[in-house]
C-alpha cells in the first residue's frame, strides 16, 4: 500500500507543478489571513515533542500541499471533511479547531486519531505523508475567503411536474 501511495505521490509532484503558480498566490493570502486566527490556534491541544518546528517545512509549501490534497482524496478524508466544510468530521474552513490548529497539532490529530471517530493514520501512512496532509488541511483555513455571512442556497434546478417526464396522470384503479 505504501509503495502505491509513494508512486502516486511522485506522479502528483511531477504533474501538479503546473498548479504551483496558483497555489503560491494562495499562500500569500494565507500568510495575510493567518494573523487574525493566531489567538485561537494557541488555545487547545499540545504539540508532539518529536514534531517540534517540523511543521514549518510543510506549512504553506505548495508542493506538500498538493501532495496532501492527493492523499486527502485517496484516503477518503474527503468523505468525512469534504472540501473543508465538514460532514462526519468537522470543517476546516474556519479558525475554530477543536484539537488545536497549529500544523503540529493537526499532524497529531491525523497521526494518533481522535476519540470522537477520527481514525489514527500512523502505520497506514508514512510520517511524511501525514505532514503533507496536515499542510493541506491547514491550507483550508488560511486560503478561505471570509464572506460577511452565510451564503444563499444554490440556484434551484429547472424543470417541474409539468415540464418533463412523468407528467401524465394515470387512471384510478
Amino acid at each position: 500500500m505504501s509503495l502505491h501511495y509513494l508512486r502516486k505521490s511522485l506522479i502528483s509532484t511531477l504533474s501538479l507543478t503546473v498548479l504551483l503558480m496558483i497555489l503560491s498566490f494562495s499562500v500569500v493570502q494565507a500568510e495575510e489571513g493567518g494573523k487574525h486566527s493566531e489567538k485561537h490556534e494557541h488555545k487547545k491541544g499540545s504539540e508532539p515533542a518529536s514534531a517540534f518546528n517540523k511543521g514549518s517545512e510543510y506549512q504553506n509549501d505548495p508542493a506538500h500541499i498538493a501532495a496532501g490534497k492527493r492523499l486527502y482524496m485517496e484516503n477518503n478524508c474527503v468523505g468525512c471533511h469534504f472540501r473543508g466544510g465538514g460532514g462526519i468530521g468537522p470543517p476546516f474552513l474556519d479558525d475554530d479547531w477543536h484539537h488545536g490548529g497549529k500544523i503540529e497539532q493537526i499532524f497529531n490529530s491525523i497521526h494518533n486519531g481522535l476519540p470522537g471517530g477520527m481514525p489514527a493514520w500512523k502505520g497506514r501512512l508514512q510520517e511524511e505523508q501525514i505532514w503533507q496532509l496536515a499542510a493541506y488541511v491547514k491550507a483550508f483555513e488560511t486560503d478561505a475567503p471570509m464572506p460577511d455571512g452565510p451564503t444563499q442556497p444554490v440556484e434551484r434546478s429547472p424543470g417541474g411536474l409539468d415540464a418533463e417526464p412523468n407528467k401524465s396522470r394515470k387512471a384510478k384503479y
Partner: protein
Amino acid sequence: MYLSLSKFSFVIALIGISFAVVYPGNIQADPNPPLSAAPKDDGQWSMPAKNYASTRYTDLQQINRNNVADLDVTFTFDTGIKKGQEAAPIIVNDTLYIVTPYPNKVFALDLTRPGAPLKWKYDPETLPASQGVACCDVVNRGGVYWEGKFIFNTLDGRTIALNANSGEEIWATQLGDIHSGESITMAPLVVKDHVLVGNSGGEFGVRGWLAALNVNDGEVEWKAFHTGPDEDVLIGEDFEPFYAMDRGKDLGVSTWPNDAWKTGGGTAWGWISYDPDLDLIYYGTANPGPWNAEQRPGDNKWTAGIFARDPDDGSAKWFYQLTPHDAHDYDGVNEIILLDMKIDGEERKVLVRPERNGFLYVIDRVTGEVISADAYSYTNTANGVNLETGRLRVVESKIPTTGEEISDICPAASGAKDWNPSAYSPKTGLLYIPHQNVCMDWTSHETNYIAGTPYIGAKVIMKPGPGGHRGVLTAWDVLGREAVWEVQEEFPLWSGSLATAGGLIFYGTMDGWFKALDASTGELLWSFKTNSGIIGQPVSYQSPDGKQHIAVLAGVGGWAGAIVSGDLDPRDPTAALGYVGAMTDLKKATKPGGTLYVFALP
C-alpha cells in the same frame, strides 16, 4: 401454475395499454390496513410505526378539526443532547420512552404524575468512535416496547433490552462492528419473539444485513446478508421473485464485478412491516456502495429493493429490485404501508412504498408483483417502471460518469423522500407523504476501499428543486393514484407525519414549526414554534386522565440538518455528502436542540 398464468395474462393486458395503465375495475371500498396488522387502537404507541401495517394513524379523535386551534403544551422534556432527533416517542403503560441520538440515552417519563417527571434513565455508554462511522448525523429512529421490555439499538452496533419498569439492562447483543464502518440507527421491530435489526454503513462499504434476535435472551437466531451467495442471503428453494430479473443462482455475487459484493452496501437501516396473516416481514435494502456506480457494473443484488421473509428462519420469499444498479444513492429502505384494496374487481393484499427514486409503488405483497408505480414528486432520472419486466426505466443521460459533472439530477441523493415516514388515514384513503424537492449536480471520481472510512467516490452539490421550495407534504390518493393536495415548505420535510381520526395531519418543519393540517384539504389549522427544527416522528396517545396527547421531539439534524447539528461550513456546498449546498440558509433559521414537546387540549 394457475396463479402464474393469471399473472401472465394480466401483464399482457397491461402491455396492450402501453405505459399509461388503465384499470377498469370498480371501486368498492377505500384501502384499509389488514386488521391483524392494525388492530383496534388501545391509546398507546408501542412501536414507531404505530402498528405492523405502519399506518402511523391513531383512532383517537378528542383533538379534531374544530378544537385543534386550542392545542397547547402540556409538558416538555430536555434530553440534553443537541443532535438530530429522529426518534418516535413510545408510550405504553402510562410511561413515555425516548431514545436520544448518540450517545443513545434512554429516558422513561411517568405520565401518571403532573409534568411527567423522570422515572428512570439509562446510558448505554456508546463508544465515542461510533460517531466517525455515522454518515449523516448521529441519529437514532427510536425504540420499541414488547412485553415488559424496552428494546433499542446503539450507534456502536448493539441491540439492548431494558426492563421497561426499572430501566435495568436485561440483555445486550453486539451486532455491528464500527471498525468495518458498521453502525445501527434504525428502530428495531419485534415480531413474535424475534427482534429484527439491520445495520447502517452503506457509505462505508459495509455488507448489509438484517438479523433476528431472541427477545428473551438476545441470542442471534438468523442473519440474512444482502450481498453474496444465496446461502448468506437466506435464499432457498421457496424463494420466488415475481420478475425474471430477480431470479437466478447467487445473484448477490454474479451481479457484481469480482469481490465488490463484499463491500457493496445494501444495508437495512429503515423500516420493517409485518403481515401476521401471511406471516411475512417486508423491508427494504439500501444503496449499493460505492456511490460511484462505474466501480460496480451490474445490477448489484440485493441492494435497493424489497425483501419478503419468513420471520422465524429469515428465509426469503420474494425480492423486488426497485433501483437496479443504483447510480444516485437511492436507498430502498423507506416505510412500507400494508393495505388491502380492490383492484380490477379483485381484492388484493398490497404494500405501498413511497420510494426514494420518486415513484410510489403499489406492490402485491403475496407475490411481489408491481401493480403500479406513479411519480409522486419531480424526477428526471427515470420514466416510470416497465410493468412487464418490473424494471425501472432509467434515463441514461442522468447516470454519472467519472470526471464529468452531470447537473440537475432530480431527485437528489437523499431522494424524493428519505427515511421520514408517511402516515395513512383509512378515513380519507390518503397517504400523507412528507418529502423533499431537492436536486443535485454530481461528479463521480474513483475511490479506494479502506475499512472504516467513507466509500463514496462522488462530489455532490445539492440544490432546491423546481419551484424553489425544498419540502412538500403530499396527500396521495392511493386508490385514485394521484396527489389530491400538497403543501410546500421552504425547507426539506425531514419529519414523519401522523394521521388522526380527528381528521388531522401533524408534522414538523426544519425551522421548528409543528403543524396541524386538515386531513381532507391540507388547510393549516394550528401551528406551534418549537426551540429547534423538527425531524422527529409525531405520535399520539391517551394519558391516564383520558386526554389525547400529541408528542414530538424537536432537535434539528439528520442528513439535511447536519449543517446545524454538526456546525458545518456553508461555504463548501459539497459538505455532508452535498446536502450543505441546499441548506446554506438553515443556520439562520434554527439552532441545535433536543426537546420533547407534548401537547393536549386545555
